């Protein structure tokens, strides 16, 4: 790739119809945007905006976030009715009790029951309760999911193997940059008396997005 093309406003080359080979086709070579990431990071470190150590720590913190955190919240709500009530009333404050900070986001927890199913999407981009579930799966950010989850949600659910009866109300929640949703799935039958840890192991990422239900 010739570098002269990129000396003026590199971030805007895509507007000039200039195609960049996708990363996957050239595994040994850095892609244009990988080079951009390195350049921006190194320049910001050189300007003391942050240190290399800060980047490393941020990546580590990201790696430490996964759906097990959301599962812990769900299992607590299933076993502690007072916590469940607090969680539904103010998700942000309730998850803080378990040590999870939502940063600048407001967390709204929506509860599934036998007669009500909730599904979350972000039609405009990819907003997701990342503090509790980690980074979203690719399909959550895909055109197909973003477009159809609000148009034909029952058909989308069916693709995930979730078939809702006609008597079950379905609510679709469109997330925003400031407001993130988490589905509190219905506790599966036959789990009476289970410990919080055992229950948490049942709670997968997809049932907290609402594309599936929790099963024993």
């Amino acid at each position, binding site marked *: 790739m010739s570098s002269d093309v990129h000396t003026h406003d590199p971030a805007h080359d895509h507007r000039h119809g200039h195609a960049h080979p996708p990363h996957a086709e050239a595994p040994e070579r850095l892609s244009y945007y990988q080079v951009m990431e390195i350049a921006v990071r190194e320049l910001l470190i050189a300007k003391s905006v942050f240190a290399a150590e800060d980047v490393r720590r941020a990546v580590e913190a990201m790696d430490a976030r996964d759906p097990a955190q959301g599962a812990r919240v769900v299992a607590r709500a299933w076993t502690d009715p007072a916590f469940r009530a607090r969680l539904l009333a103010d998700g942000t404050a309730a998850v803080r009790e378990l040590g999870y900070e939502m940063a600048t986001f407001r967390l709204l927890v929506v509860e599934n029951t036998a007669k009500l199913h909730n599904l979350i999407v972000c039609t405009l981009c990819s907003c997701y309760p990342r503090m509790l579930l980690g980074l979203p799966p690719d399909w959550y950010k895909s055109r197909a999911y973003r477009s*159809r989850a609000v148009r034909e949600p029952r058909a989308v659910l069916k693709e995930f193997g979730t078939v809702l009866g006609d008597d079950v109300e379905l609510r679709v929640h469109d997330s925003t940059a400031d407001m993130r949703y988490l589905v509190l799935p219905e506790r599966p039958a036959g789990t009476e008396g289970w410990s919080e840890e055992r229950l948490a192991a049942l709670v997968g990422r997809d049932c907290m997005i609402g594309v599936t239900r929790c099963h024993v």
Partner: protein
Amino acid sequence: MRQHHDMGGLPAGPVARQEHDYALWEKRVDALMMLLSQRQLLRVDELRRNIEALAPDAYDTMSYYERWISAITQTLLQRGVLTSDELGRAMAEIEAREAGR
């Protein structure tokens, strides 16, 4: 008029249940966003605006974190945190460094 990113309700094909483990460079892009937000050098609205300003074909062909690094960089240029000259030079140097490995 509906903008390109505003796709809720439009017809589309089946949801491809695709997932991949995020590469280190993608996580670093995410880290940049968080570190810059914490330092009030980037607001999520700016990130969004610069993603949404992408031409439709770029929006569709770029990967998720490619859109992000493009928008982060654009924000830093708009705010004057970086200049396009220093960015262009840095990118050329990195390309040269990599080619010489």
